[in-house]
């Protein structure tokens, strides 16, 4: 059997007495969307942060394409092509769109002085932002607009645009449609599907919306109070069954 793209191997994490994650194990294949679901406090965001290097696990391993990863900081995961849109922490309001998309990856002007002082090449970053955005499904406002002046949907579009611009292996989206209206949700879902189907990107999508989950996911991983209670294949399950696992009405039977 070939290695999956990402393999999460008995990951545990506690915050003091709170056991946020206990022995979580599952894989994400190439060009696959895995939905990560569970009630509030189930540990979804904690797991997301571990995969993206924002938190280090207490125990367990992470494998990417068969290599063991030791992410100590977000930059480590980013370098491996893993991009994350965090719940509540996606963008800096005080910066403009292009500055956000290039945050942590600034292009500096050529020449010794530019490198030495870190002189930002803003025209170039704005130009490239415009180019990158024109290839997406979602509409993103002008690169020099301040994020503060954007609607919830536009912000989410920028955040996803940022992840798409940089992530070439795995995108992790923590509740990407939580704050969005009907049409904006549709745009985001279309973009997600297109990324998988046309570019072969893999994604972990955290969501509370069962309809969205059921529509885009290939497999569904259910967490409950820090434990992994089910992995369901989309074609063999129903939204009702997923909900039953989330609420605990149905309990662990088989783990794929």
């Amino acid at each position, binding site marked *: 059997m070939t290695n999956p793209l990402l393999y999460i191997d008995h990951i545990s994490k506690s915050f003091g007495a709170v056991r946020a994650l206990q022995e979580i194990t599952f894989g994400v294949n190439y060009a696959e969307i895995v939905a990560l679901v569970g009630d509030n406090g189930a540990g979804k965001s904690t797991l997301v942060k571990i995969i993206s290097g924002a938190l280090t696990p207490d125990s367990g391993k992470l494998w990417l394409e068969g290599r063991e990863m030791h992410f100590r*900081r*977000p930059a480590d995961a980013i370098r491996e092509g893993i991009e994350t849109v*965090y719940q509540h*922490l996606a963008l800096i309001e005080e910066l403009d769109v292009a500055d956000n998309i290039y945050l*942590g990856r*600034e292009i*500096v002007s050529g020449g010794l002085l530019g490198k030495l*002082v870190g002189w930002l090449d803003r025209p170039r970053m704005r130009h490239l932002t415009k180019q990158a955005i024109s290839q997406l499904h979602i509409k993103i406002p002008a690169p020099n607009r301040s994020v503060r002046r954007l609607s919830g949907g536009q912000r989410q579009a920028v955040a996803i645009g940022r992840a798409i611009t940089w992530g070439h292996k795995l995108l992790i989206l923590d509740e990407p449609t939580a704050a969005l209206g009907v049409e904006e949700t549709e745009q985001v879902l279309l973009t997600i599907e297109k990324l998988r189907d046309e570019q072969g990107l893999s994604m972990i999508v955290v969501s509370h919306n069962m309809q969205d989950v059921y529509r885009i996911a290939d497999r569904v991983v259910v967490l409950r109070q820090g434990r992994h209670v089910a992995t369901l294949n989309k074609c063999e399950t129903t939204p009702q069954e997923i909900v039953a696992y989330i609420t605990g009405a149905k309990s662990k039977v088989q783990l794929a």
Partner: protein
Amino acid sequence: MAEVASVHSKALDGTAIRQAISQLLVRYGIVLVLVVLVAGMTILSPLLRDGQQLFLTPRNLIQVTLQASINMILAVGMTFVITSGGIDLSIGSIVALCGVLSAMAMRDLDIGPWAGFALALLIGAACGFINGLLITQLRLPPFIVTLGTLGIFRGAALIISDGRSVYGFDRSFQEIFSARLPISADLELPVAVLIAAVIGTLAWVVLTKTRFGKYTVAIGGSEETTRLAGVPVQRYKLGIYTLCGLLAGVAGALLLARLRSGDPTFGTGFELNAIAATVMGGTSLSGGSGTILGTLVGSLIISVVQNAMNLFNVQSYWQQLIVGAVILFAVILDQWRRRQSR
């Protein structure tokens, strides 16, 4: 068509004009405060001495900027720190420590004026670095850390100098660093003003055009988001506090040159004036937005008010009260301005 036009012009009469004015205030409010103060003093000062203009003379204006210069340099450092969501209460103590140590080194070790100046900068940067280390490594709030080092640096200055002023160091230090450069027949530019102007310009460039400046804003906007984007936040914060300390070292050296002695009590309360100039200028105390130009204008306002009170012979107790009231007024204005721009 005609109807549309008339509706349009009516809107222009009322709301549009009001909007334009509030836009102007929002953007340049603090500059207007300075303009009004200068205009007011220009009109009022002839009433003092038989119609003679005392305020709006080249000499007096240079005096005003000279008085503002040290606060400007400190406030520029403070602008970086506050923009990043922090605060530095220890800069007044750093000023004293740098002055005392630099003066003693020049007097006892005979290191010469340039090395004396460099030493002040080095000590300032080291103090800032210590602040940064405590804040980033122990994850303590900047307010607490710098409140502590405010006492520690001041105490160190007092202990090292035995509580006494340090005199008798190289005269050439004063000659160089409080020199006045002749511009024209009766106009001279103090070195401190020149240095403040250069620092202000460089700081503006750094804050608005470079990666360091962008990260300063980003960290103040959301430190966690910046970290998650892969930015080595702790390293940049260390840099920001070191920069603030370095600038306090510059201020310490210039004060030493101007006052011709290094005194361990110098610089007491300077941090408050620097914070006041910064906040007045429009830098948000909650971090994420800062303006060097605003900070420079804020420093000038404080200096103009002090100068005005000197010209009017206002008693020094009253001066403190009035400066405090002006700061409060400017901040209230700024809050109002911010609410308008939301």
